[in-house]
C-alpha cells in the first residue's frame, strides 16, 4: 500500500529524476551497444572510461579553472566547455587505447569469446586500482605515481547554482536538469546522424551486420572498430561530466561500476547493438529505477536495473527495438 | 499421412529478415529409402537441414517425424520449441556440410559423445561411479568401437579428429551421427572434396547404412552419387521445390536442367558435378 501511495505521490518528481538519470545511462549505454554491435563483446572496461571522465572533470574544474564557488555568465560557459571537451577526448582516447592493448591482440589471434570477456574484466580491475594507487605514495618500479586519485572520493566543486526554471505538474524543473537532458538529446541526435549518414557510420553498420562481407567490400575493419571505441568513449566522457553535475557524483575509482552495469542493462532493454534502442532503454531504465525506488525504498534502487535485465532476458531477449546497429 | 512415411515436412517457410531462404517446401521421406535433396548453390538445402534438426525454427509450417510434430508442441503461449538435442534423441542424426567434429577430441571420443545421447547417467552417477554409469561407459566404448569398425576407420580411433584426412573426418562424422541411434540420417554433402575412389567407398557405406534399416536423406552436389544411390530425389532452387521423383525423371526435368545450367551451375564451377 505504501508503494502505490508513494508512487502516486511522487510520480512527476520521480519521472523528472528518472529522465535526467536516464539521459546519462543512455550516453553510457551507447558505448556498450556500439561495441557489442561491432565486436559482440561486452566491454567491461567501459565503466572505467566513464570513471576517468569524472577525474578529468574534477581537474579541469578545480585545478585548471580554479573554481571553488558557483560561477555564472561567460566564465561558466568557458569552464563548461573547457571541462567537457577534455573529458570527452581523454575518455575517447582511453577507450581506443583499451581496444589497442587489451582486445586487438586477441582479435588478431582469433581468440575465443571467453578470452575477450576475461581480458575486459582484467583491464577494468587494472584501471580501477591504478587510480586507487595514484595517491602519491605508491611506486610502479622506479616511477612514483602522481597524487591524482587515491582510495577516497573527491567532490567536484559545484559549477553553478541550481535554480528552478519552471514548474510542470507540480514539479520543479531546474536549470541543471534541463541542461543534461538537452545536451544528451543533442549528442544522441548527432551520433544517430553520424551512424546513418556518414561513410564511417555506414562502415560501422556494415561491420555490425557482416564483418566478412564488409571487409570484402573494402571497409577497413580496424578503422571502424577504433572509431566505434572512440565514439563510445566520447559519449562516456560526456556522461561522466554530467554525472558530476546532477547526481553530484564525486570523482572516485569505483564510481563507474553501478552506472556501467545499469547502462548495459539499458542497452539490452532497448535491444543490444541498436543505437536508438540504447537511448530509449537508458531513459526507460532511469524512469523505472526512480519510480521503483519510490515504491520499494531507496535502499533497493540498485537492484532494479538487475531485475529489469533478467526480466528482459527472460521475456524479450532482443529488447524493445530489436537487435543490431543497422536498421 | 502416408503409411510408410518416416518424415513429412509440410509447407515449410523460413525467412531471415527480408530474405526468404525456404519457400513453402513440402517433402516426404519413406521409411528405408535413400532420399536425395539437390539444388544449386544457395538453394536452401542446408537451411532445410537446419530446420529439420532444430538449429533454426521455421517461420511457418510443421514437420512430422513418425507422425509426431518435432518442431514444437502446443500452440500460442504454451508452445514449446523443440531443441536440437530433443530432435536428435527422437531419432534424427546428421552430419555437417563443412565438417564440425570436435577437433581436439580423438575420433573415438567424438563417437562416444554421440552414444551419450541416450545415456542417462547424471552428475551423481559420474561422481560416485554408480553401476549405471559404469554400464553406460562400457556400452558406449564398445559401441563406439563397433561403429568405427563399421565405417572402416577403427585404426584411427585414438587420433585427434582434427589431424585426420578430409575423407576420414567425414567418416568420423558419419560414425558420430550413427552413434546417436538415428532412424533417419541426414548427410550434408558427404562426398564433397573426395576423390573418385573415396566416393565409391562412400556410396558403399551409405548403402550399408541403409541396409541396417536407417533411412537416409542426402544433400549432394555430385550428381553421379545421387543418381547411383538415391531412390528418389527432390530439387530445390531459390528456396522452392521445383521437382521431385525418381532420379532419371528428375534429370530430364527441364526446370532442373535450367536451374543447374543457369546461374547455379556457373557459380559452382565444373569439376565434381560435371556429370549433371
Amino acid at each position, binding site marked *: 500500500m505504501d508503494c502505490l501511495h508513494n508512487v502516486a505521490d511522487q510520480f512527476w518528481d520521480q519521472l523528472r529524476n528518472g529522465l535526467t538519470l536516464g539521459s546519462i545511462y543512455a550516453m553510457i549505454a551507447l558505448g556498450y551497444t556500439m561495441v557489442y554491435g561491432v565486436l559482440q563483446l561486452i566491454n567491461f572496461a567501459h565503466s572505467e572510461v566513464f570513471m576517468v571522465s569524472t577525474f578529468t572533470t574534477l581537474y579541469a574544474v578545480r585545478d585548471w579553472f580554479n573554481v571553488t564557488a558557483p560561477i555564472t555568465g561567460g566564465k561558466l560557459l568557458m569552464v563548461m566547455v573547457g571541462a567537457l571537451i577534455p573529458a570527452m577526448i581523454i575518455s575517447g582516447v582511453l577507450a581506443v587505447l583499451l581496444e589497442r592493448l587489451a582486445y586487438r591482440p586477441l582479435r588478431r589471434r582469433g581468440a575465443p569469446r571467453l578470452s575477450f570477456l576475461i581480458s575486459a574484466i582484467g583491464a577494468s580491475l587494472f584501471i580501477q586500482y591504478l587510480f586507487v594507487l595514484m595517491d602519491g605514495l605508491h611506486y610502479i618500479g622506479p616511477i612514483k605515481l602522481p597524487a591524482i586519485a587515491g582510495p577516497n572520493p573527491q567532490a567536484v566543486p559545484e559549477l553553478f547554482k541550481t535554480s528552478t526554471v519552471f514548474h510542470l505538474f507540480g514539479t520543479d524543473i531546474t536549470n541543471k536538469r534541463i541542461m543534461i537532458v538537452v545536451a544528451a538529446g543533442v549528442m544522441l541526435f548527432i551520433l544517430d546522424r553520424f551512424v546513418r549518414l556518414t561513410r564511417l557510420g555506414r562502415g560501422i553498420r556494415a561491420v555490425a551486420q557482416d*564483418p566478412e562481407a564488409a571487409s570484402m567490400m573494402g571497409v577497413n575493419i580496424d578503422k571502424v572498430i577504433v572509431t566505434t571505441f572512440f565514439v563510445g568513449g566520447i559519449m562516456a566522457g560526456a556522461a561522466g561530466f554530467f554525472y558530476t553535475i546532477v547526481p553530484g557524483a564525486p570523482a572516485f575509482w569505483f564510481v563507474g561500476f553501478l552506472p556501467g552495469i545499469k547502462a548495459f542493462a539499458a542497452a539490452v532493454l532497448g535491444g543490444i547493438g541498436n543505437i536508438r534502442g540504447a537511448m530509449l532503454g537508458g531513459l526507460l531504465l532511469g524512469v523505472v529505477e526512480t519510480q521503483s525506488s519510490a515504491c520499494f525504498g531507496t*535502499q533497493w534502487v540498485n537492484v532494479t536495473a538487475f531485475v529489469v535485465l533478467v526480466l528482459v532476458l527472460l521475456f524479450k531477449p532482443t529488447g524493445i527495438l530489436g537487435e543490431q546497429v543497422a536498421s | 499421412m502416408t503409411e510408410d512415411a518416416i518424415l513429412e515436412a509440410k509447407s515449410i517457410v523460413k525467412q531471415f529478415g527480408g530474405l526468404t531462404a525456404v519457400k513453402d517446401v513440402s517433402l516426404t521421406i519413406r521409411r528405408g529409402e535413400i532420399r536425395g535433396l539437390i539444388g544449386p548453390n544457395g538453394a536452401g538445402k542446408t537451411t532445410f537441414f537446419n530446420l529439420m534438426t532444430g538449429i533454426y525454427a521455421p517461420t511457418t509450417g510443421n514437420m512430422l517425424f513418425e507422425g509426431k510434430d518435432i518442431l514444437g508442441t502446443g500452440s500460442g503461449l504454451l508452445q514449446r520449441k523443440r531443441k536440437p538435442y530433443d530432435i536428435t534423441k527422437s531419432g534424427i542424426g546428421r552430419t555437417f556440410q563443412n565438417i564440425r567434429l570436435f577437433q581436439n577430441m580423438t575420433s573415438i571420443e567424438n563417437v562416444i559423445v554421440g552414444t551419450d545421447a541416450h545415456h542417462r547417467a547424471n552428475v551423481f552417477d559420474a561422481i560416485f561411479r554408480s553401476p549405471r554409469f559404469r554400464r553406460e561407459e562400457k556400452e558406449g566404448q564398445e559401441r563406439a568401437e563397433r561403429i568405427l569398425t563399421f565405417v572402416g576407420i577403427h585404426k584411427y580411433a585414438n587420433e585427434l579428429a582434427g589431424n585426420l584426412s578430409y575423407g576420414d573426418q567425414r567418416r568420423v562424422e558419419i560414425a558420430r551421427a550413427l552413434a546417436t541411434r538415428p532412424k533417419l540420417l541426414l548427410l550434408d554433402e558427404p562426398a564433397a572434396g573426395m576423390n573418385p575412389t573415396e566416393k565409391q567407398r562412400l556410396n558403399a557405406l551409405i548403402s550399408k547404412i541403409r541396409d541396417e534399416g536407417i533411412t537416409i536423406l542426402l544433400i549432394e552436389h555430385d550428381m553421379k552419387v545421387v543418381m547411383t544411390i538415391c531412390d528418389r530425389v527432390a530439387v530445390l532452387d531459390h528456396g522452392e521445390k521445383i521437382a521431385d521423383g525418381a532420379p532419371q525423371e528428375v534429370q530430364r526435368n527441364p526446370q532442373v536442367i535450367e536451374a543447374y545450367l543457369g546461374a547455379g551451375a556457373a557459380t559452382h564451377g565444373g569439376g565434381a558435378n560435371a556429370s549433371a
Partner: protein
Amino acid sequence: MSDKPPVNQKQEPSSTRPQNQSLTRRYEAARDRSKATRSAAYARFRKAVRKDLEPVTSRWRTFRGKIEDNRKWAYPLIGLILITIAALLPFLGDWFSIPIWLQRATNGSVLARTALFVLFALGLNVVVGFAGLLDLGYVAFWAIGAYTAGIATGAHAYLEGGSVGPEPTWHMWMWAILLLALVVATLAGLLLGSPTLRLRGDYLAIVTLGFGEIIRIVANNLDHVTGGPRGIRNIPHPEIHVGGLNVVWGTLIDTKYYWLLLGLVVLWIVAIRMLDNSRIGRAWVAIREDEVAAASMGVNIVRMKLAAFAIGACTAGVGGVIYAEQINFISPPTFNIQQSILILAMVVIGGMGSIGGAIVGASAVVLIPEVFKSLDDYRFFAFGFAIVLMMIFRPQGLLPSKRRKAELVGASQDQQLYEAAGGSG
C-alpha cells in the same frame, strides 16, 4: 552453398591496410625484423639447453611413461604423497629453520586461507574452464554459504535476541549445515542460471556481475534476516563428537581449519576428475568446441551448462560455511566484486580447465601478497594486469590442460546456438 548464419562472426578476416602509411609500415617492418632476430636467437638458446638437458629429460620421459603404464596405482600413490606433503606444511617451521617469508606462507591461518581459495578456484574452474562460462559474481555463492551458516547456527538469532544466554554452539550439526549450504547455493545457482544460460553466454557475465552486487545489497538491507550492515557475530566454531573422537576447532589461527579445508579440496579434486572423465565432462568439451554440433549430437546444452554453474555455486557455498565458521564474523562488505575477480584471476593465471592450474593459481594469488607484504596494496592492480597479459600472451595459463591449450591458443570459431537456444535469429 552455405546459408548465412543469423549471427555475426566476430572473427575478422585479415584487413587491408591503407597504402599511404609509410612510416607505420617502416616501423612494422623493423618490428618484424627484430622479432625474427629475437625468436631465432631464442630458438638457438632453447636448442642448446635442450641438448644439454637431454639426459635429464629422457630419464624424466621414461619415468613418466612408467607412471602412465601403471596409472592404476601410480596416480593414487602420487596423490597420497602430495596430500601428505600438503598436510605437513604447517610443521615446516617447527622441524626446519626456514626463512621468515616461508614462515609467513606456512602458518596455519595463511594456509587455511590458501586452501579456501583453492577450493573456490576449483569450483570456478568448473564453470569457466570446463564449461566455458564466465561467472563474475562468484562471491555471491560464497556469501550465500556464509550467511546460511550464520543463520542456521543460530548466531544471528542470538544477536537479534540481545546476545543474552549462552552463545550458540554448533556441535553435531556441522555436517548438516554444510549440506544445507550446499543445497541452498546450488538452488541459487540454478535459479540464476536457468533464465540466463539459455541465452548467449556473454550475458551470463553481466548478469552474474549484477547478482554478486545484489546479494551484497540484500545482505545489507534485510536487517532482521542477515543482521544488515552490522553483520553476524559469534558464529560458532565447528566441533565433532563421534564416539571417542572429539575434535574442537578453535579460533582463526587454528591449523585444524587448514586440514579440514585440505580434506574438502581433496574430495573436490576427486569429484571433479570423476566428472571430467564422464559423459558430463565430454559434453562440456563438446560444447566449448562447437555448440551447434554438440546440440546436434544430443548434448543437452542448457542442462550441461547449468550443471557446471551449479557445481561451481555449491563449491563456493561449502567454502563459505567453513569461512564463516573460521572467521566467526561475517558482514556484507567482505563479499565485494573484487573478490570474484580475484578468484577468476586464480583460474586464469593457473590455467583454465586444469585442476593443477587452479591449485597453482590460487596459491600464487594468495601467497604472493602474503610473502611480499609490501606489495599488498598492489594486489588487485597487479592481478588485473596479469589477467590481461595472460589473455594476450599465455591464454592457457601457467599449468595448462592439454586440450584447453589447443582451444585457447588456436583460432576458434565459437559460434553460439542463438536460435536453438531460445533467443531470436
